[in-house]
């Protein structure tokens, strides 16, 4: 008898199981959604940054095909000008077939042979010491016919604008999930309190302090929050894996998640972000239920 009661004292709040079970289930769904939102947020942030990064050390010069101009001569002129500009690491003209190849997917093979396809010069830029693009553009347009400079700045700005708004959206979703969880936990805690009113009263009468009473509660909400968080986290991880392997992202297409995982520790950040989900769920479960109970005890006295 003595060993039994030593090893396994009965929980002091017995009438909580049903409330906690439904909390565990709804909270697991919340954590699943939160996990998806976290991963989406990180993907968007990273894609935008990876692309912007790629764009920022490149620029392109385009030479319009003009009927009465010697294309090769203009090209050489432009190349010389570009190469002599400070901040340019290298510049190379794509040959005619390369330009045609870029258009092939839209126009079809062979069609491009007769078309006036613009010639392209790809410029590698020293990121830390970028050239004065305005100056370069002015010089080029003055001396080369049909030239235009694309610094990708417009793309970069748009990318970062899109990135910012998507990150904002994902954060908003996360905030709403957090709010809903807080309400959910507080509602459950009130149910647990109502189901255990008589017990709480006896505890108070035998001199249990509010802290002692809320500790009885903490244990149950701790395990519930942790359980829900871990389930939700693994479910969202599984979903991401399924989308990645099942959704055709492994073939090196534009959304190459595989490559992204190696860019700036993306994989580690996803793991860290997802690990936050059960942590936050446990914290919310314990803190909100504790506050609700302490509030109840205070109001009671």
């Amino acid at each position, binding site marked *: 008898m003595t060993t039994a009661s*030593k090893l396994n*004292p*009965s929980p*002091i709040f017995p009438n909580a199981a049903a409330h906690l079970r439904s909390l565990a289930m709804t909270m697991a769904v919340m954590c699943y959604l939160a996990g998806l939102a976290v991963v989406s947020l990180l993907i968007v942030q990273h894609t935008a940054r990876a692309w912007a990064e790629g764009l920022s050390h490149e620029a392109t010069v385009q030479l319009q095909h003009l009927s009465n101009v010697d294309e090769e001569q203009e090209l050489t002129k432009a190349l010389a000008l570009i190469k002599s500009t400070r901040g340019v690491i290298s510049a190379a003209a794509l040959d005619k077939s390369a330009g045609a190849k870029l258009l092939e997917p839209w126009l079809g093979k062979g069609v491009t042979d007769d078309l006036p396809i613009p010639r392209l010069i790809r410029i590698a830029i020293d990121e830390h010491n970028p050239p004065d693009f305005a100056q370069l553009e002015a010089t080029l347009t003055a001396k080369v016919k049909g030239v235009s400079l694309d610094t990708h700045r417009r793309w970069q700005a748009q990318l970062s604008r899109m990135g910012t708004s998507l990150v904002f959206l994902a954060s908003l979703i996360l905030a709403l999930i957090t709010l809903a969880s807080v309400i959910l936990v507080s509602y459950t805690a009130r149910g647990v309190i109502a189901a255990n009113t008589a017990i709480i009263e006896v505890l108070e009468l*035998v*001199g249990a*302090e509010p802290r*002692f009473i809320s500790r009885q509660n903490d244990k149950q909400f701790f395990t519930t929050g942790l359980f829900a968080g871990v389930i939700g986290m693994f479910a969202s991880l599984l979903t991401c894996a399924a989308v990645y392997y099942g959704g055709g992202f492994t073939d090196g297409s534009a959304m190459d998640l595989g490559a992204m995982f190696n860019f700036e520790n993306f994989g580690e950040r996803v793991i860290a972000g997802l690990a936050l989900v059960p942590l936050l769920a446990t914290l919310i479960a314990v803190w909100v239920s504790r506050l609700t109970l302490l509030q109840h005890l205070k109001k009671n*006295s």
Partner: protein
Amino acid sequence: MIELENVGLAYGNGPDILQNVYLHIGRGDLRFLTGASGSGKSTLLRLLFLALQPHQGMARVLGKDVASHTPQSRARLRRKLGVVFQDFRLLDHLTIFENVELPLRAAGGEPGKHTNDVNDLLDWVGLKERARDFPNTLSGGEKQRVAIARAVVTKPELILADEPTGNVDPAMAKRLLRLFLELNRLGTTVLFATHDKHLIERSGGQVIHLMPGGRLSQ
């Protein structure tokens, strides 16, 4: 220990249950509280274990005004009290042993740490064999004995017992009274509400009588 000065007390906006009550009980005293059913004995005890507040006068328990407590100080004071409730208030989901152990756990004790004390007490009230049973398998008198064991397990400074022998036979009543007398001999202050004239005569304690209308005669 207990000082009441001109205390008036009512439930909500209802009539006064206690009126102009003066009461002084010193450390180590033993007092019996009598009065007709409905005269307010339980109400007076509720005031003393800080479950009710007077609307008039001043009430001090263990040197502290009952109106000046915080939740923490109230809990601290209650741990120095041993209360036998008229309706027992056992927790049905805990075993008899765990019910008696509860005040020790509430005071911060590890479960199972005071096993010997609890078992000795259960032995005294004749329920050692029932330690692992649950309260709803006990008779009224047996529950009452568990309630008494729980009230005294912490060796309280002041025992407030609300008809603690109301549900047991005379022989058991005598045995339980001995427990209270023994604790009183060791220095515990005891306030014992009862209708049992024989018990009072046997013990030689002083009697406080609650009269209809809520006044005390001592």
